């Protein structure tokens, strides 16, 4: 089973963020249209909808490509992804007005105030989440499609 190797790698990786997006989007839609919270869905949705699944797919293609030369665990490979996605996500959030900095807080959606002292924990949490997601969820999809995991 060695046909369309990279296409399979791409498809295996986009399953998780696509399903996650459905849940998140449902939650945000519920909050906005049922509880009338001022969440600007149209402004923030391009990042999780367009960028994240594609980056997951490309990252898994890179993993498959690197396997013959450098056999490293999938969990560690996935753990490196937030190092690129985190700053990109924040840059897009800041550019679209989803996030802004004011009075010692990071304010998301004009609704959620995150004090600065939360921020040093952010990268560790992101690395941990990505490690588990890639090791178990993307790894499972890779195995089902006959890819290295």
């Amino acid at each position: 089973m060695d046909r369309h190797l990279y296409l399979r790698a791409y498809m295996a990786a986009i399953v998780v963020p696509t399903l996650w997006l459905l849940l998140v989007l449902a939650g945000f839609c519920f909050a906005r249209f049922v509880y009338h919270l001022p969440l600007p869905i149209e402004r923030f949705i391009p990042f999780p909808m367009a960028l994240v699944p594609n980056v997951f797919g490309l990252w898994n293609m890179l993993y498959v490509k690197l396997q013959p030369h450098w056999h490293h665990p999938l969990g560690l490979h996935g753990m490196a992804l937030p190092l690129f996605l985190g700053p990109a996500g924040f840059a897009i959030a800041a550019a679209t007005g989803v996030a802004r900095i004011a009075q010692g807080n990071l304010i998301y959606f004009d609704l959620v105030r995150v004090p600065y002292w939360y921020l040093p924990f952010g990268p560790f949490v992101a690395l941990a989440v990505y490690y588990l997601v890639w090791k178990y969820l993307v790894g499972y999809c890779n195995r089902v499609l006959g890819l290295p995991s």
Partner: protein
Amino acid sequence: MRPKNQDYEEIQRALKDAFPSVDTELHRDLWPPMLRRLEEQPVREVPWYDWALAAALAGIAILFPKIALLFAYHL
């Protein structure tokens, strides 16, 4: 001057001649082999440190729900 429809029909005919119809029907049901493959996957042992990590993340999400919302956007 020829009617527009006649041009369309000619183009349609020429295209059909140039590109013979493709057989798009599936010759077998692909879902049963897919299900078989899903069932063949062995259950992997989850090491204790991964359980600890998952528990720590769940704890953070419960203690700091704001950060969970932030991650809902970023992940």
